[in-house]
């Protein structure tokens, strides 16, 4: 050992090349070492949930800045960087993500885009919300204006995901979560959207409540258009259910005796109350127009078109006001179509027969009260009678053979008289009409079948020269 001390005094010359070697080593190795440590530190933080993570390496010292979402997570992240082999020390510049109170998140939809804003608890839930929004909105642009914050109420993710799904049912509007209160405003995209959203809100996670739901439904529209050229009645828009659909189409079939009913109606919830009670009389009013449009929007009914004769617009308006359910508004814009050219008695008779061949004047069963469904046909008969002002007309009542012959005779007379009264009320001179009843004496078909009996129950117009 003594020798070693003796020799060691002569080791110093080697220090000169050693220093040169050291300088070269330091010169070449610092850069690669730093980038290697940075890569290893980043890899060590791969599973840590952090925001705005930043790693800077100088020599073997790592400066680590990040926003953590919990104190434990923050400490674990620092420890995992420190545990990276080669790291000498960590300059800890981490902090906790600021806490939001109240914790507010919102999704807003306007014409062009959907904007998610406010606070989100974790980067993962933020990206999940964005993905969910993109998936449920199809091609609509989704803008992320969310920031990250602590203090989210329990179950925030599932609540927000549920609400993101509701945004797709909105035309425009805003959904906000403030702590555990949800508020909604805006306009639903489709009929029934408001109801669907209200139903979905029942699935909010426990603890969440709806503070305000001010989603409005779009107007409930029903339209009917009577086209005299194509001889069609086109129904479009919505009806509340299958039964009402059937009722309305059947009523249209009875009231529009010569028109083909084109049914483009769709079933949807969200109808105003008393829908069928308003639409059926409104269709009756439309049947009395030569050409016309009926638009029902929520509780507002607009009827526009041309009536057949001067007294009709007033009658139509009064009937509508009388028949309508409460809370409904009617706007009738009815003019009178120009009078058709006069024709001679023979043509008049032909026109009457044609009309009565297509439709039948109906009465209440066993009584002489005119069925309102026949108003359209009666108006056409009146228009025809006006075209031959000099002809005298016999209105004939016929019944089927069911029941007592004397009763049938009396009923047929009363029914013929009811028609004449109606014509007179429309402004035709009473002197031109005679009401005659034939009971079941002149059947046009067999009284053995229901069909035949229906044909025998009839009113005929006979022009007397």
């Amino acid at each position: 050992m003594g020798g070693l001390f003796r020799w060691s005094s002569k080791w110093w010359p080697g220090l000169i090349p050693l220093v040169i070697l050291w300088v070269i080593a330091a010169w070449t190795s610092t850069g690669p070492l730093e980038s290697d440590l940075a890569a290893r530190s980043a890899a060590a933080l791969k599973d840590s949930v952090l925001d705005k993570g930043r790693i800077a390496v100088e020599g073997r010292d790592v400066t680590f800045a990040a926003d953590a979402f919990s104190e434990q997570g923050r400490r674990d992240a620092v420890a995992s960087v420190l545990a990276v082999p080669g790291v000498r020390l960590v300059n800890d510049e981490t902090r906790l993500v600021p806490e939001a109170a109240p914790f507010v998140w919102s999704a807003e939809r306007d014409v062009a885009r959907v904007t998610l804003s406010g606070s989100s608890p974790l980067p993962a839930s933020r990206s999940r919300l964005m993905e969910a929004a993109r998936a449920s909105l199809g091609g609509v642009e989704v803008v992320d204006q969310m920031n990250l914050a602590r203090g989210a109420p329990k179950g925030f993710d599932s609540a927000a995901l549920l609400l993101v799904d509701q945004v797709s049912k909105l035309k425009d509007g805003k959904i906000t979560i403030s702590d555990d209160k949800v508020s909604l405003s805006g306009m639903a995209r489709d009929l029934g959207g408001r109801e669907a959203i209200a139903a979905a809100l029942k699935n909010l996670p426990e603890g969440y409540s709806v503070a305000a739901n001010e989603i409005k439904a779009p107007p409930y529209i029903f339209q009917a258009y009577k086209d005299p050229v194509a001889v069609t009645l086109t129904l479009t828009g919505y009806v509340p259910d299958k039964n009402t659909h059937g009722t309305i189409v059947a009523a249209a079939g009875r009231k529009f005796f010569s028109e083909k009913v084109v049914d483009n109606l769709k079933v949807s919830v969200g109808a105003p109350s008393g829908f069928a009670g308003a639409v059926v009389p409104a269709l009756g009013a439309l049947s009395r127009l030569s050409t016309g449009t009926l638009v029902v929007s929520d509780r507002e009914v607009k009827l526009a078109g041309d009536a057949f004769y001067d007294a009709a617009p007033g009658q139509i308006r009064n009937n509508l006001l009388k028949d309508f359910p409460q809370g409904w508004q009617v706007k009738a814009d009815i003019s009178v179509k120009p009078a058709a050219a006069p024709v001679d008695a023979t043509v008049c008779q032909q026109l009457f027969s044609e009309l009565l061949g297509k439709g039948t004047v109906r009465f209440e069963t066993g009584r002489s009260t005119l069925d309102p469904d026949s108003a359209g046909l009666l108006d056409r008969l009146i228009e025809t009678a006006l075209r031959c002002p000099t002809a005298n007309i016999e209105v004939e009542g016929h019944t089927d053979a069911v029941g007592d012959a004397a009763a049938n005779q009396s009923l047929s007379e009363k029914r013929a008289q009811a028609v004449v009264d109606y014509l007179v009320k429309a402004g035709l001179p009473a002197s031109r009409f005679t009401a005659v009843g034939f009971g079941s004496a002149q059947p046009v078909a067999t009284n053995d079948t229901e069909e035949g009996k229906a044909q025998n129950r009839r009113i005929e117009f006979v022009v007397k020269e």
Partner: protein
Amino acid sequence: MVYLATFYWGWLLGSLLLGFAMGWIAVVHRGQGVSKRTARVLAFLVAALIGAALGRIVPGRPGYWLDLGLIMFALYLVGCSAGSWLRDRVLSGNAKGA
């Protein structure tokens, strides 16, 4: 340290070989050695540097360079010791043989 050793074993091996060569030469070197006083000052200096390195007083890159230098120096010393000792064994063996 293990990390540094595996990362830059080339430089460290260089230091070791340099030390070995110096140690080999030192045994038969006739020049002036370092005086005891200077050796003590040097030893004190090295101890201070080791203290600074262990205490992690020097920050950032200079800190890394200090670590690197000390490790290289340590291996240099190991090389010197091994070289001198071996050379001594070789010389004394030859002397006996002669």
